[in-house]
């Protein structure tokens, strides 16, 4: 079961990861010319004209854009969180539902295997791919940045881990919501909408004290890259919350799936 799931989901993993790698490669290729000859300082000066709330939302108040690593710490990771988040949420919402949507569930349900085992194997495979994507992108960033400049590798390593937290929660949330429907088409819109809503809430929450509460509604808060950049450590509360949310939503998904009508 696991072997088959690994094979089935490999193509999606390669497409998503490959696309990200190409984009990062292109950025790293052209970025040195953007910031060369003191142009990076000009970019930073230009940014000073932006409202501080906006700069804070993209970590630009604590990381300059005068180097590729600076770009990665600010805009780069925001982009990575979003894309890894969408991939994880889609994987969560499709991994069980695909069998129902493509009607192969009647075959699968007749096999001598429990529903719990079916779900568990699919969850394990999803986790393997989500973590592999984060590792591949992290290693690529590490290699690419070390070729062009001398980044703070300890900080880069910790930053590379941060996408794990929103990603696993979005995966589990997608998985749970998928147990309420039979069609993957419905889940596509819901998943993407959910990730973008969380992303926008996360950005808005940085824009003033009045809207600060929104950060509790955004899973991207769990990445807390500001803490890594300013203190060079992961936020332990976010780590615990992520693991707890993952466990809760997976447990709820298993309970729902166990009772679900599959046709």
């Amino acid at each position, binding site marked *: 079961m696991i072997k*088959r799931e690994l094979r*089935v989901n490999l193509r999606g993993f390669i497409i998503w990861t490959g696309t990200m790698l190409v984009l990062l490669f292109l950025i790293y290729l052209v970025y040195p010319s953007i910031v060369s000859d003191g142009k990076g300082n000009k970019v930073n000066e230009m940014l000073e004209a932006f409202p501080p709330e906006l700069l804070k939302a993209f970590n630009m108040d604590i990381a300059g854009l005068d180097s590729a690593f600076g770009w990665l710490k600010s805009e780069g990771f925001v982009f990575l969180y979003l894309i890894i988040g969408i991939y994880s949420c889609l994987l969560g919402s499709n991994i069980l539902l695909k069998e129902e949507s*493509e*009607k*192969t*569930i*009647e*075959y699968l*349900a*007749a*096999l*001598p*295997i*429990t*529903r*719990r085992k079916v779900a568990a194997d699919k969850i394990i495979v999803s986790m393997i791919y989500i973590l592999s994507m984060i590792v591949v992108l992290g290693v690529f960033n590490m290699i690419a940045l070390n070729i062009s400049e001398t980044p703070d590798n300890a900080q880069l390593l910790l930053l590379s881990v941060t996408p794990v937290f929103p990603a696993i929660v979005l995966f589990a949330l997608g998985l749970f919501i998928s147990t309420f429907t039979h069609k993957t088409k419905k889940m596509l819109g819901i998943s993407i909408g959910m990730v973008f809503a969380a992303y926008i809430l996360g950005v808005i929450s940085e824009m003033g004290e009045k809207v600060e509460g929104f950060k509790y509604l955004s899973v991207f808060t769990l990445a807390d890259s500001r803490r890594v950049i300013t203190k060079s450590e992961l936020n332990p509360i976010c780590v615990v919350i992520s693991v707890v949310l993952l466990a809760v939503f997976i447990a709820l998904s298993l309970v729902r799936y*166990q*009772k679900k*009508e*599959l*046709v």
Partner: protein
Amino acid sequence: MSETILEIKKLTKYYGKVKGVENLSLSLNKGEIFGFIGPNGAGKSTTIRSIMNLINKDSGSVWFDGRELTRDDVEAKSRIGYLPSEVFLYDDLTVKGIFDHHESFYRNYSRAAGIHEKRQTLVERLKLDESRKIEDLSLGNLKKVGIVLALMHEPELIIMDEPTSGLDPIMQNVFYELLKEEREKGNTVFYSTHILSEVSKICDRVGIIRNGELIRAGQVDEISDKQLTFVTVTADDVDALTAALGVKALSQEENTVRFANNMPDDELIKKLANFRIRKILIEEATLEEMFMHYYEEGREDDKT
């Protein structure tokens, strides 16, 4: 006394307010082919999906070989083969790939020890090409793959929903032979269909389902031999005749009337003796006619 392999007890399933099946009880004996007949929407697939635990029952239970069949009873599932009415398999695999995948689930079951050999025999007899991709298969070939998957692990109970749709007549005969061989080995077949000729051809017993309720069950011969006859009479006053007999005309043309009759022949003739009969024909109902009769009767009941 024959041993029961599958027992459905008071099964009820509603989809919202729409009835799927209601209070349906049924049992299958070891080593028989049980025909489950009814038109589309009668509740056949709901019954089968309830057995397979694909849907949740509102009430009632399903028992397999003396124990309640729950959705996670893996050991029981290893002894059941299932062919759904429409076969959907993994498009990315070849026929060989899906058979290998299927085999991998039965390695720990001694009953399925000969799974690979049986697969080869079935592939040969159904003339399947294992190198072809699932997505390239025609409806008939897909059905054949489904048949192999339902039979290859030597199940004791084989549940089939409209199994011959898509099969050409030659393959249908091969398929009937395969089912008879399964019966000879002592395996049981639950055969759901709306094709009545199939039932008379291969089934030992039959259950008729109408509007979610089992209206008759018994030996195929027994059901066919029940008192129902079709009588065609030419008489002077057919209206008075049908009124006196309390029957409804199936067709009427001038002085000739055709009606379904449940009375014993002796009683019928005594009642007809009161009229001037010119011509009479009494025909034994075939299984098909029995079935249609029960359905027509049902429709009338539903109207009233």
